[in-house]
């Protein structure tokens, strides 16, 4: 590769990074603007919008609601996803490729299609739109991600681990809980945080499956439709910081996983 193309590519890389970060940086900045009017230039600064958000009981209750959904979704996704991975990982059987493809299906179906399909389906199985419908929708979406991460980790587990446990008198269940599950721990932490992020950030499923109580993204969307305001920036910035912390934490546990410790 010639020197020029190398320089060109590094310029493209950094330009792309700028494209990724500048909008978010602008959004954060705008939350400190001392005016109701969104736009540049910013002449004076304030923390009032953050104070308003912290005192806004609606925002706080919606935040709690979103958190509850995210935690419930994460627990369910981890259990089902791990079970799917333990089933599909080591076992060989006819039609496995099809089952595997079906297991991954919700990860690639366009969000709107899956949201509407689940809404109709929730009606069929008598789940009212609301918290449980959203949890179902998010869990359906997240299970494939958990299953893939856990399968990847499972494939690196030495067979001797389980054989040793069996020799020491453990049956399948005990061997799973005492040997396999601790081995999977870093993968489960990483996948779990990822589930929290996906659920907490999700808009389209929460919008179509939810009842009257909005989740945080749905609330931001509703506020946005009635006009931009720095208050939305303040809420978004808080969400941004939370997601960044969660994401970095997930990244760290996944990296440890790759090093194989």
């Amino acid at each position, binding site marked *: 590769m010639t020197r020029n193309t190398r320089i060109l590519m590094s310029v*493209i890389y950094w330009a792309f990074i700028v494209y*990724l970060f500048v909008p978010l940086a602008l959004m954060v900045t705008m939350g400190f603007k001392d005016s109701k009017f969104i*736009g540049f230039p910013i002449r004076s600064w304030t923390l009032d919008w953050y104070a308003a958000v912290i005192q806004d009981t609606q925002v706080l209750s919606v935040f709690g609601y979103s958190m509850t959904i995210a935690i419930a979704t994460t627990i369910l996704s981890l259990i089902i996803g791990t*079970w799917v991975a333990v089933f599909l990982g080591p076992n060989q059987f006819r039609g496995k490729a099809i089952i595997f493809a079906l297991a991954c299906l*919700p990860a690639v179906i366009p969000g709107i299609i899956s949201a509407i399909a689940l809404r109709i389906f929730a009606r069929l199985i008598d789940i009212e739109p609301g918290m449980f419908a959203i949890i179902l929708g998010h869990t359906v979406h997240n299970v494939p991600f958990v299953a893939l991460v856990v399968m990847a980790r499972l494939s690196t587990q030495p067979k001797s681990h389980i054989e040793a446990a069996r020799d020491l008198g453990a049956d399948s269940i005990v061997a799973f809980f005492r040997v396999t599950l601790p081995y999977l721990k870093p993968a489960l932490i990483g996948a779990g945080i990822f589930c929290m992020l996906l659920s907490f950030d999700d*808009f389209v499923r929460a919008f179509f499956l939810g009842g009257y109580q909005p989740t945080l993204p749905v609330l931001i969307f509703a506020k*946005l439709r009635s006009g931009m305001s720095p208050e939305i920036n303040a809420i978004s910035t808080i969400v941004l910081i939370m997601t960044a912390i969660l994401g970095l934490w997930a990244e760290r546990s996944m990296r440890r996983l790759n090093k194989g410790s």
Partner: protein
Amino acid sequence: MTFWGALLQNGAYQAVANTLFKSQRRQFWILASLPLFWIFFANLGPIVEMFWIGFLDSYPPKVGHEPQFTLANWAAFFQDRVFIIPFFRTLAFSFIFTAITLLITYPVAYFLAKHVSRKNQLLFLLLLLIPFWVGEIVRTYAIMILLGNNGAVNLALKSLGLIDRPIPFMYTGFSLGVGIIYLTALYMLLPLYSALEKLPDNYLEAAADLGAGAWTRFRRITLPLSKEGIASGCTLVFLISTGYYATPVLLGGPRSTVFAETIAGFFHVAGD
């Protein structure tokens, strides 16, 4: 004695375990029960039901009227301009956005995989990852602030003296494209990166020794060997970009109505 040891000694547990694990076959089906149930019930069920309702002449079911099988809904879909125009527009938009995403992210992925030292790769990759943890709505809003009439781009152009009045970026196909690419680029980047990372350096060196120019090396070696990454990246981006709802509502205009908005519109009219 530990909890697990006690459990293994417990008579009731032993009886249960013995029935559960009596044969390999039974053990397999017990393990398979929940995954298979979940896959067919939660993954396949809603899709099949939605497809099935497409053939019914009335939904939700009315009292005293058994739904009849019909193809009318499908015919209406293909004849009604309200459906068909947004449908094909969505496909066209997604196709264009996917192509642009590929063009932008390929050099980025290549740079990351081949020109960044192993030690720094993780850091550079992390820089790309961080913005993608943020949700759809927040990132869409960020783009609105970037491109608005009083947004950063217009301000920058104005202060450079290039324009007198703001360019109306918002509510067009352009703003929608910037937003969608912002949301989906990662799904292209990661497959490309993992394909390019596997490409052995010595293939390229060998080709260079044999006198192949930069363009020939790219066309004959790099491109064919990253084909899989390109294919999976494009599929992912295409599928995912058709599914956004809030972004087109907030960034798009009347002339860029996508299918998701049409579906949602009818859905809300129908009530359920």
